[in-house]
């Protein structure tokens, strides 16, 4: 199987879905001629034309609101928010409108639409090009939130998101775009929304992560193995609906769980994962649940010392995992 980067996988995923279904189109800032600021849509404008790859005005509420309207009228839009940090102007459209369409009409309307947003730090993006937004949106009933960490999952989940009948917030960790390479199966390779994936089997402790932190956790597991500690790595892949069964299964298997995310700590995804384990696997625990997260500061600063202080990294995850293993 060919090795691909995350950005290549996403581009291929969009291309194949647009080729398969003429109702699929892309709208966002700079997605046309420019091919997207990360080149996620490179070549698609030429291939599909200006009404399948639409350069929107610089207005996020417009991008999402127009996508909603198109979805009402039989299309399957992919709306690109250039950086997750800029999604705030569209929050009214996402939360009050997209997420509520199905519920507020008792199922008469549904919105098959994807909102793609590059998220996360480690790219010297500072306060407004590094943010994590998953916890904010996972709190909203009616939305699905996806955060793949590998090329195969990025492509497969993007296809699932495009075909899904409901609005899906599709989070692409921008540090993984060209950092993470992997095998991507030829053909459809749809990855179902709502299914976590055990990326590495282990028996002594569980590392639960998603996005860039998955890559770090896999590296940590390798280092732990050198010390004779067998770590299981569970990749959530989908934040909402969360795969409760997979979380409970790994907790019961190892009895020790460390949840890792770069999003800020308070009411973050780790808190939800820990609550699920407390509710469903308390008896199986051999240690207190642990989490390693970004700190509760507004976002990661530009200066590299401060950025590194914000981001969980391999060394820090390793130290925390050893603390857990030794408990």
């Amino acid at each position, binding site marked *: 199987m060919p090795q691909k980067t995350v950005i290549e996988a996403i581009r291929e995923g969009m291309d194949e879905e647009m080729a398969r279904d003429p109702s699929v*189109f892309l709208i966002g800032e700079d997605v046309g001629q420019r091919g997207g600021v990360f080149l996620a849509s490179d070549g698609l404008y030429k291939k599909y034309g200006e*009404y*399948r790859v639409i350069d*929107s*005005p610089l*207005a996020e*509420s*417009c991008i*999402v*609101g*127009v*996508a*909603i*309207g*198109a*979805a*009402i*009228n*039989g*299309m399957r*839009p992919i709306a690109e928010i250039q950086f997750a940090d800029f999604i705030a*102007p569209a929050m*009214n*459209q996402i939360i*009050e*409108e997209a997420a*509520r*369409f*199905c*519920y*507020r*009409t*008792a*199922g*008469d*309307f*549904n919105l098959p639409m994807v909102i793609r947003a590059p998220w996360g730090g480690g790219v010297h993006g500072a306060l407004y090009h590094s943010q994590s937004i998953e916890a904010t949106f996972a709190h909203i*009933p*009616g939305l*699905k939130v996806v955060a793949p960490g590998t090329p195969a999952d990025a492509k497969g989940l993007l296809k699932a998101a495009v075909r899904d*009948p*409901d609005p899906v917030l599709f989070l692409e960790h921008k540090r993984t775009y060209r950092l993470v390479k992997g095998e991507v199966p030829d053909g459809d390779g749809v990855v179902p929304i*709502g299914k976590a994936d055990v990326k590495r089997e282990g028996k002594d402790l569980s590392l639960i992560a998603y996005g860039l932190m998955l890559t770090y956790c896999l590296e940590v597991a390798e280092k732990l193995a050198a010390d004779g500690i067998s770590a299981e790595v569970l990749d959530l892949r989908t934040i*909402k*609906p969360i795969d409760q069964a997979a979380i409970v299964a790994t907790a019961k298997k190892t009895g020790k769980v460390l949840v890792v995310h770069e999003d800020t700590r308070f009411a973050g995804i780790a808190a939800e994962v820990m609550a699920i384990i407390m509710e469903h696997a308390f008896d199986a625990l051999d240690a207190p649940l642990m989490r390693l997260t970004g700190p509760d500061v507004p976002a990661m600063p530009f200066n590299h010392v401060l950025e590194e202080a914000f981001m969980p990294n391999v060394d820090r995850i390793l130290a925390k995992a050893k603390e857990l293993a030794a408990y």
Partner: protein
Amino acid sequence: MATKTQEVEAKGGQSRHRSLGLSDDQALRIYEVMRLARAIDERMWLINRQGRAPFVISCQGQEGAQVGTAAALRPGHDWVAPYYRDAGVILWFGMTAKDQMLSFFARREDPNSGGRQMPGHFGSRRLHIVTGGSPVATQLLHAAGVALASKQRQEDAVTAAYFGEGGASQGDCHEAMNFAGIHKLGVIFVCENNGYAISVPQSRQMAIQNLADRAAGYGFPGVVVDGNDVLACYEVAGQAVERARRGEGPTLIEAKTYRFTAHSSDDDDRRYRQAEEVAIWRQKDPIQRYAKYLRESTTLTDPVEKEITERVDQQVDEATEYAEQAPDPTPDDLMTFVYKQGTVS
């Protein structure tokens, strides 16, 4: 202000509706839908004041702007994205008195929302009525998106987006008009300017007299029309629809009108407007005005008026009786349709 109305009245005289291409039956149909919208609304207030239902939000006074513009569209083919006062629009597009009463009593069978939304939050995929929430002006972007899809598929459906002049203060209003202008989308933006955003008068929402002036900034025409003259509204909407169907892009129609009631059953409009002002506008009631014209043109006779009144009253009576007795949702209904395939947590 030399309005379109005066021009048309000067041109059309007593056969104005015929000169606009409306048969007598069509002209009467417009009248009947206006009457029905008003009658449903009045009944809702009565029931609300009796303590039998918690909330009303009104169309009264704006039926001319609503039915006049909607009548220029093709229900089932074209789309509307109404706002919460647009009872006249959605009735023209196929909603019934029963549908509205089911919504008013928040019953399980309410086709708008299954009793989940407050009254006035219209929506029906089948009838091409875009569901609305409570934050204002969001529907203008939805309308632009609906029209974009029509353009992408090279269909000639037109989308009418309705809003109040208060909603025009929202950023989404600008973003929608800008986008629709750029792509020459088949959208008609209909502003029902009733002078007040709840209590805040137009002079505190915008520094201009005519919202229609803003259309120039988006590269399409803006028209001011007397919103209480239903035929004038029909005429300008017809021109906008033709323009949209030809692929020439949007039109902004500003229908100057007035709401006769408070903002809602929970508002007291005596706190911000004078009874004299309301009384002056009640003299300009679009329904009475249209009835007067129809009588002068001999389209509306006493027997016809009587038939219409009987039909309207019967629909409202039957709808009220049916809806008040209709079952509530069950507690289990709370959890359904969070997603298309049910509930996911």
